């Protein structure tokens, strides 16, 4: 049944976009199950979209747009298989395709509602380790986020042709590698899931770091990542790291408003107006963290980072922050995922929890770390700890060094201010 109300073309296109965003992931997933080739499945889905763009402005959006798109895509699939068969390709291949066509004709209708497994398989294909990270990101946003090539390009500040090429190559690679449409077996699951979560968190951070800019596409990546994360956690409810990542993203997203000042300047966590934190997202984040913890076992890197973020989220004022707990969580994180940046954060937590001497001890150990050589936060942290110990001269030179290293003008002003403050005392 089609709606009788005629709509304007522009309205219709916006409505089609909305339907596409909702329906395309499971449409592509369902088609991949049938044709066993994600590239072909995506083309068929695109064919269906083209048909919708042609027909819906006239006819209105169908009552069940998902079923309409699937039926249309299946017809295209059968057309293609017949056409290909007429080309008289290798006999065995035709046999296979006829079989596939029969499967197609008898395939279960998609309205059954149980599309979760197909979606999960699609997630694992899009984030397959055979693909480069960039390709995984582009393919995931395209196949599971319903983003167009143009939207992905704008979000990642690269030319559209680059993204288009990445996606074409990625699909070719998947076909060539005969990547099966399946959820990885238990022994592979951990590594394969890590690849999925990495892609999602990368998308989130790309959006989160875009604090300013004229294009809303970049900040919107946070929403795409949250959607994907919630989807994966829902489909893999027994995986604590999936919930851990969701928790981390929800809590970080809760601070979006508070982390940028009126002039676009970054505001550090402890200086943020906590009244601007989104309590709904915080509650969702804490609930996701609870789910991760309830699954038992030691927390993974995402859940640990979420637990640290949760310590800040639970504190009503900066002074109420449970730094001893944060220090303990950084200890655990350093064991699991040791990195100079984690060490530096650990130094900050130690400084707050156990006094500046304890913090400085950890920070000093990083001075010779090559990867932090031009990282302004190291001298900035050391300057802060030295100032607290009353070692003003050393503190001043650290703040000056940090000011020289940062690329952010506002941060530079702030650091020079602190340096000047040291000389006065």
């Amino acid at each position, binding site marked *: 049944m089609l709606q009788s109300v005629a709509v304007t073309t522009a309205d219709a296109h916006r409505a089609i*976009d*909305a339907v596409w*965003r909702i329906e395309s992931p499971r449409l592509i997933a369902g088609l991949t199950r049938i044709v066993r080739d994600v590239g072909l499945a995506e083309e068929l889905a695109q064919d269906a979209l083209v048909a919708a763009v042609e027909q819906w402005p006239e006819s209105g959006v169908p009552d069940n747009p998902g079923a309409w798109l699937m039926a249309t895509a299946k017809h295209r699939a059968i057309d293609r298989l017949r056409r290909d068969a007429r080309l008289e390709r290798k006999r065995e291949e035709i046999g296979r395709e006829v079989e596939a066509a029969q499967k197609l004709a008898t395939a279960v209708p998609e309205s059954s509602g149980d599309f979760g497994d197909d979606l999960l398989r699609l997630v694992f294909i899009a984030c397959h380790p055979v693909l480069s990270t960039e390709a995984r990101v582009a393919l995931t946003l395209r196949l599971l986020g319903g983003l167009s090539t143009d939207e992905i390009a704008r979000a990642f500040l690269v030319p559209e042709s680059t993204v288009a090429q990445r996606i074409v190559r990625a699909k070719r690679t998947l076909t060539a590698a005969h990547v099966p449409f399946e959820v990885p077996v238990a022994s592979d699951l951990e590594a394969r899931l890590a690849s999925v979560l990495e892609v999602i968190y990368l998308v989130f951070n790309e959006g989160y770091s875009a604090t300013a800019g004229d294009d809303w596409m970049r900040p919107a990546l946070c929403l795409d990542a*949250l959607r994907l*994360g919630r*989807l994966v956690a*829902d489909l893999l409810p027994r995986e604590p790291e999936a919930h851990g990542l969701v928790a981390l993203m929800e809590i970080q997203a809760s601070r979006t408003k508070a982390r940028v000042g009126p002039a676009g300047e970054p505001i550090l966590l402890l200086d943020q107006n906590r009244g601007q934190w989104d309590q*709904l997202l915080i509650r969702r984040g804490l609930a996701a963290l609870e789910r991760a913890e309830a699954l038992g076992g030691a927390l993974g890197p995402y859940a640990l980072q979420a637990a640290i973020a949760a310590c800040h989220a639970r504190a009503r004022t900066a002074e109420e922050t449970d730094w001893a707990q944060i220090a303990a969580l950084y200890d655990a994180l350093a064991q699991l995922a040791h990195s100079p940046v984690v060490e530096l954060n650990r130094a900050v937590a130690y400084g707050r929890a156990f006094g500046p001497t304890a913090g400085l001890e950890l920070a000093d150990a990083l001075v010779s770390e090559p990867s932090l050589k031009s990282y302004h936060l190291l001298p900035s942290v050391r300057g802060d700890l030295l100032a607290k110990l009353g070692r003003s001269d050393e503190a001043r030179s650290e703040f000056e060094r940090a000011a020289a290293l940062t690329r952010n003008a506002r941060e530079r002003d702030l650091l020079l201010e602190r340096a000047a403050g040291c000389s006065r005392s």
Partner: protein
Amino acid sequence: MRFLMYEVDNSASANTPPSPALLAEMGKLIEETTKAGILLATGGLGPNPTRVRTSGGKVAITDGPFTEAKELTGGFALIEVKTKEEALEWAKRFRKIVGDGESVVQEVFGG
């Protein structure tokens, strides 16, 4: 963009509890929107609202139920989507399940 969706008029079924079939359908939709990662919060609203009204600096409290047609009834959902059209598409899906009546879809600022 966040949108609040709520029912303002379900007079056809206002005084009858939802059937098990309707509840099952609603459950499916909630599951679907949760899986899609767009449902932030949802809830049903109790049948007897209380009005708190100020007039000339005085506060008056009136217990429901109220008889006006456009009563906020049923339930609400807070969703986060990219466009208004996407919110409307979900609202359409909701309306198809619950039958005759009216929902309001309103953008929430500051979310």
